[in-house]
């Protein structure tokens, strides 16, 4: 707190001079490679682990490239006193960023928006009737933001809910696709997101083949949307398998 007082001199992060980030001319050369050397339709390697936070009812850690997220689930516990009586359970979601998550210190994206998106993505998958009158809290902390943050948070949150033993219709997996000129890039990193023409995020329940959330922004043509949706759904079902095996691994290791 000492440095946060009004006497703190204004600071700035030194930048590299004479170097402007330019959008690559993708249309011109088709053999353009992505910043991390992946092919267009290849996801980043996913690392998932449950039980990251001991004091929570359930938790999970997810690392997709440089995007690192921890989600804790608390409850079901007593709803706030001011809440009306409710036959079904409530879901409360909150997303925060660390100050060092973004390249420029303390400039996180709008987290209110992310929290409500997360709430809507998860709501459909949770059997809210199974915990009447109570609330389940899902809190996410983005340790490092490396692109496709919301899909990673959603995936990680679903794993944490399963770890907490909350009744679910199915786990949800979420994947995003960026449209860049003629190309579709799956699981984009921050740099790619910064110069994308449009983005599409699908959150779905892989075993039920149901979509809980789909967001399309930017400029898209109908055939492109179809192609992107198929890409996302395929990736979601693969991600769902990884999540399942992560839970099985955690369950097979005897815990003290």
């Amino acid at each position, binding site marked *: *707190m*000492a*440095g*946060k007082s009004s006497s*703190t*001199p*204004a*600071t*700035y*992060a*030194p*930048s*590299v*001079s*004479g*170097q402007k980030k330019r959008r690559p001319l993708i249309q011109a050369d088709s053999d353009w490679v992505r910043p991390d050397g992946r092919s267009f339709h290849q996801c980043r390697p996913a690392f998932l682990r449950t039980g*990251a*936070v*001991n*004091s*929570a009812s359930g*938790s999970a850690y997810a690392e997709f490239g*440089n995007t690192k997220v*921890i*989600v*804790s689930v*608390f409850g079901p*516990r007593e709803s706030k006193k001011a809440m009306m009586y409710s036959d079904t359970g409530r879901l409360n979601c*909150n997303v*925060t960023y*660390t*100050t*060092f*998550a*973004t*390249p420029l*210190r303390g400039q996180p994206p709008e987290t209110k928006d992310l929290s409500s998106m997360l709430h809507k993505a998860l709501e459909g998958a949770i059997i809210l009737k199974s915990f009447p009158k109570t609330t389940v*809290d899902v*809190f*996410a*902390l983005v*340790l*490092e*933001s490396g692109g496709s943050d919301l899909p990673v948070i959603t995936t990680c949150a679903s794993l944490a809910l399963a770890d907490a033993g909350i009744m679910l219709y199915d786990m949800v997996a979420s994947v995003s696709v960026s449209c860049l000129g003629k190309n579709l890039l799956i699981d984009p990193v921050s740099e790619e997101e910064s110069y994308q023409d449009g983005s599409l995020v699908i959150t779905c329940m892989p075993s039920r083949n149901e979509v809980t959330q789909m967001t399309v922004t930017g400029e898209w043509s109908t055939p492109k949307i179809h192609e992107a949706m198929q890409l996302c759904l395929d990736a979601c079902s693969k991600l769902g398998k990884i999540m399942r095996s992560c839970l099985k691994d955690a369950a097979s290791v005897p815990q003290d």
Partner: protein
Amino acid sequence: MAATGGPNDLSSEMELDAFRRLFPLRFHERHLTESIRPDGRPLGKARETTLALGAVASAHGSALAKIGCTTMLAAIKMEVMTPTVETPDEGGIAIDFHMPPICSPLVRPGRPAELAPVISKQLSDTILSSGMIDLKELCLVSGKAAWMAYLDIYCLDADGALFDAALLSAVAAFSHLQIPVVSLNDDGRVVLVSEDNTVAMKEKEPVNKERIKLTLNNIPFSLTCVLHKNYILADPTSEEESIMETFLTVVLDSSFQLVSLNKPGGPGLAHTSAIQDCIKLTRQRVKELQKILNEAISDMEVD
């Protein structure tokens, strides 16, 4: 509150978990009489401690410290400031401790934990007064530009002894810190010098070529003890902290000089002998922590 005898023989009839929840104090005191703690530790022993450097790629220095289940992530970002008129050749350090809602069921969003600002203040007092960092090393151009080190520590899992874990992660982040090489451009602004950008920067000499690492002298380490009756419990878990409410935190530096001693009230009073015992335990702990820090640093250099 009788510790033994009387109606407390319920313990033989009741399930262990139920007894632990219903009579937490008696549960712990029965352990203490046997000189052991519920997690199997002797009274004076700290939990297993691990340290990993460089956990955050987007920061200039970072470390993840774990003491038992208590987990702290510290990261440093360097920014440039104009030094104050009184200290034209000194940089600055701003330390902030955060307890996000993920770390404990007691913290809710929008209602920050009361403990966080207390620990934040304690940490900056300790680090700045220990003389670990010479602020003059953070100077770039006297009177014009100096580094401001923003150190942010996040508690990822709160299970007692938060200050100890936070301090350990903070000093480890400083020992991992790599200051970027910068130079002054024509407008008097500080810019980064990157390897692939040498053409444009040829005429500009980097201003801090040799000062990429800070020299850390007298690194502070701490140990929190719980005082309960005649017992001293080192490195309490959150369960122990919630039941027995008298704490004593000792900070010693690497040459075993006392940096700070903090007993924030509590129902128990500390005798001189108890304080000396705590300091003795801390001396042992400092040796352990120094070894852990050195191992983490040498692991980093191998990679």
